[in-house]
């Protein structure tokens, strides 16, 4: 299965799970599918049969409300059965609406409160360097998440310590919970902002799988942390969801899932 097909299948599953389990944040999930597909199939040193291998790379989801996208990537990558995704948000489920401590192996940290993941990863990356290990750390943040001050505390620290085993990816879909992210806070010029904080910065189309893979490869070449600013579209892949912020919270009906499936070419 090529990566485009995997991404399309993930998008359909996300719509179907959201519809059947009545869980929100579909738009936020759809915008980062290509980033996750690239990471889990082309970049991360991981083995689903040994999810806790000590030499693995770590992926941390900053935007915890996109938990379903992470669970879906892990399921398609073979960490657990795809059918298990339909337990999302149900009583007693490992797949909580925000990843909790009972999440299955493959989910590295708790998430849900924004602005924690980059700090956690900075501590992990620092420890790893002190231990002279080779693990690499990848953190996916939303553009709304960048409102949190801790992101910039972590950014300054990581650059100061030259944590070259740390990569941040900004899922820059231009929308946050209640409006346009660039209207709510002064985000742009985002690339320059990260550069000014001491990071090597790469800006790409976050839905172009080749560009994503190239950016992650390139990120290994620098002796400083790297931020990939990925321009994305909230709701990507389903025309009536794209750039419509209602889909931050809306749950699709069964016929809308069918329409999405057709649009995704499945």
């Amino acid at each position, binding site marked *: 299965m090529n990566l485009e097909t995997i991404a399309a299948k993930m998008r359909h599953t996300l719509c179907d799970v959201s519809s059947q389990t009545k869980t929100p944040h579909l738009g936020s999930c759809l915008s980062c599918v290509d980033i996750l597909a690239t990471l889990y199939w082309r970049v991360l040193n991981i083995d689903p049969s040994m999810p806790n291998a000590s030499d693995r790379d770590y992926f941390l989801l900053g935007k915890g409300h996109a938990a379903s996208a992470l669970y879906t990537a892990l399921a398609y990558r073979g960490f657990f059965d795809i059918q298990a995704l339909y337990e999302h948000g149900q009583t007693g489920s490992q797949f909580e609406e925000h990843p909790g401590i009972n999440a299955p192996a493959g989910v590295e940290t*708790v998430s849900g409160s924004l602005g924690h993941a980059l*700090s*956690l990863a900075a*501590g*992990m990356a*620092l*420890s790893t360097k002190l231990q002279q290990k080779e693990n690499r750390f990848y953190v996916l943040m939303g553009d709304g998440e960048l409102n949190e001050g801790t992101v910039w505390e*972590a950014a300054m*620290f990581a650059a*100061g310590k030259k944590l070259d085993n740390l990569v941040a990816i900004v899922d820059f879909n231009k929308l946050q919970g209640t409006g346009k992210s660039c209207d709510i806070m002064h985000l742009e010029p985002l690339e320059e902002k990260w550069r000014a904080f001491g990071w090597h910065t790469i800006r790409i189309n976050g839905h172009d799988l080749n560009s994503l893979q190239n950016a992650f490869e390139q990120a290994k070449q620098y002796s400083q942390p790297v931020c990939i600013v990925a321009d994305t579209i909230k709701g990507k892949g389903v025309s009536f969801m794209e750039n419509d912020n209602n889909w931050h919270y809306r749950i699709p009906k069964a016929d809308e899932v069918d329409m999405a499936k057709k649009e995704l070419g499945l």
Partner: protein
Amino acid sequence: MRNAFARVLTELAKDDQRLLLFYADIGNRLFNPLKEFASDRTVNAGIAEANMASMAAGSAMMGHKPFIYTITPFTTARNFEQIKIDIAYQNQPVIIVGTGSGLSYANLGPTHHSFEDIALMRSLPNMNIVCPADAQELEILMPQLIELNQPCYFRIGKKNEPSVHDAEPALKFGQAHTMVAGEKVTILATGTIMPLAQALHYELSAKGINAELVSFHTVKPLDEDYLTSASARFDHIVTLEEHNVNGGFGSAVLEYVSDHTAAVRVHRFGIPDFFIDQVHSPEDARIKAGLTVSNILNKLVHRGLL
């Protein structure tokens, strides 16, 4: 007490490569001896305490045993949500060190006072709370906290706290330490307020009351065995702390006793529910807070204890 902390950490870090210190740009030369052989494990996290707390949790996930260290309000209240999620919920063995707790920095004003930290930390599942009374208690308890390998809040003083024990006490994490056995009344003190508790104990003796005196260094988990026994043995429990009377050590004692027996009265003494400002010294502030032997005795008389 901060000197004792740095000294003990330096000693332990020589043999234990897992120990890692994050500090938020304070301490000046305090950690120079540690830096001499472990500069890479002596990490100035900058004046960014929220990030520091999460980073420590991250480093713990990778096998380190981290400490985070700064003045108490900045390592408990400023970064509370990071402690809640990354340290407590994810159950990471980070030791949160609040230096200059209570009224240690009285003259620096409410920004540097911490009368809410025990209340905050008490409310977190998985969190342990230890408040040594002096440098000796710190030295004995600190290795036990490292061994514990759980989230821990270590509430310490600043400097020149008087020694409260004549001989080396056999302190054990989680167990109240009886310094003087007594009857009718037991005085339970946690942390650097112990000298006041000793003075109160002395005054009660002068009045013919042979009270018990206890160093209650571990606030969480509370020594329930001691409190159960105390409820049977005493008519009155007096608690002392440099913390708001609401939500701190005294509240913890009161809650336990109330839930399990109504046979004993609990008298809580701490910082009243107001901000303390315009004071020159900790002593000055204690007077303002009513934390003096004479004031406590007056209240106990008023309540019919004496």
